[in-house]
């Protein structure tokens, strides 16, 4: 890294102006002030959306909005970019899993922000979906927390988005999340999941999912919110510690610090594998669950399988 110019306040100076920098972008070796950092993030998200045509005229985007930092940044950025597109609307959907001491705070924050941004907000719960909250479902099976929660959350979100008339679901997955998923799927030897493209149209079976923040590092998202007084210290999900992801996150974060660009390289590798696999029979053919009719890869979908295991 070239030595940055230091302002009298002891902060490096922005590469675009003379203001003190608030962030350092380690992959491009740039220091940016608040104004240029906000503009940079919003422009990069817009580029991600435009390059893969994630949003088109007439779309109604269901934003998976937990009230946590990633989905907060996503909702703020999409609501600011909204005038760029023709006839596009947003609806925020919050899934209340029923995690004591965790979700109540983020739901409160979610309600406040949607009101401030003037975005329609819908809240759905696991209790409505399956009759119990996550804490009850997980009693004695905490190690499966993320798997069970993921299955139910996806279903709750998909149902709510369809009911809201959405054409796409936008999630707040960031660059760190994407790199972690690549490594986790590789560690599990799960090629179909590695190359699955949830953003693709599927003949009306699934609503396509888009990830506008997939080019933004998690630290950048936290910084983006902090400089706008939108960053809140919220409790961490109590089940996170049971997940393989927690270990992968820590390992990758260390590698990224020591070898800048590691996460981007992982994602680029995944894209190359996707291209090599294009047209190859990697994925099982799409079928429909014999019990609920939802699209799935086996005879019974994961939600119905979970219902059985819970005796529902």
């Amino acid at each position, binding site marked *: 890294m070239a030595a*940055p110019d*230091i302002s009298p306040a*002891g*902060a*490096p100076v922005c590469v675009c102006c003379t203001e*003190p*920098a*608030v*962030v*350092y972008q380690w992959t491009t070796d740039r*220091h940016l002030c*608040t104004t240029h950092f906000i503009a940079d993030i919003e422009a990069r998200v817009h580029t991600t959306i435009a390059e893969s045509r994630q949003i088109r005229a007439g779309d109604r985007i269901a934003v998976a909005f*937990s*009230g*946590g*930092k*990633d*989905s907060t940044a996503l909702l703020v950025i999409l609501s600011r970019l909204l005038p760029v597109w023709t006839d596009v609307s947003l609806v925020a959907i919050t899934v209340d899993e029923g995690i004591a001491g965790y979700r109540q705070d*983020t739901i409160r924050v979610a309600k406040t922000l949607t009101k401030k941004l003037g975005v329609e907000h819908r809240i759905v719960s696991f209790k409505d979906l399956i009759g119990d909250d996550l804490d009850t479902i997980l009693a004695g099976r905490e190690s499966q927390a993320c798997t069970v929660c993921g299955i139910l959350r996806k279903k709750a979100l998909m149902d709510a988005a369809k009911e809201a008339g959405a054409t796409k679901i936008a999630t707040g997955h960031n660059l760190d999340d994407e790199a972690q998923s690549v490594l986790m799927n590789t560690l599990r030897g799960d090629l179909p999941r590695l190359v699955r493209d949830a953003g693709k149209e599927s003949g009306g079976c699934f609503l396509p999912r888009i990830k506008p923040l997939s080019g933004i*590092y*998690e*630290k950048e998202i*936290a*910084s983006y919110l*902090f*400089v706008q007084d939108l*960053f809140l*210290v*919220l*409790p*961490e*999900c109590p*089940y*996170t510690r049971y997940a393989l992801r*927690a270990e992968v*996150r820590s390992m990758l*974060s*260390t590698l*990224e*610090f020591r070898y800048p660009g590691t996460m981007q390289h992982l994602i680029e590798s995944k894209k190359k594998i996707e291209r090599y696999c294009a047209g190859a029979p990697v994925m099982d053919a799409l079928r429909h669950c014999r019990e609920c009719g939802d699209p799935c890869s086996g005879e019974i979908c994961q939600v119905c399988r979970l219902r059985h295991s819970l005796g529902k």
Partner: protein
Amino acid sequence: MGIGAFRAGAGYRTRALLYPDIYVRRSPIFYTVMKIILQDQSTRVVGDSPGTVEELLLVLGINPLEVIVSRNGALVSEHAVIGDTDEIRIIRIAHGG
């Protein structure tokens, strides 16, 4: 004096005990006090000559990519020089939301 001085020695501890909230080291070399609020909200007061945010984090064993840092309430980059009477807050980027 380099960043190694963040590791409090016996002399530091004695002085910090006498002045728990705000400790000013009076020496012909420097006059610095820095209050550091850690991720778990605990507070440390250290005296040192200026170093960077990144150097402080590494001494504390924190990966700079897993936190954001504010100085006197304003966000600063890893290369900002800190010291004097700065209040440094280290904020963990919470996961799983």
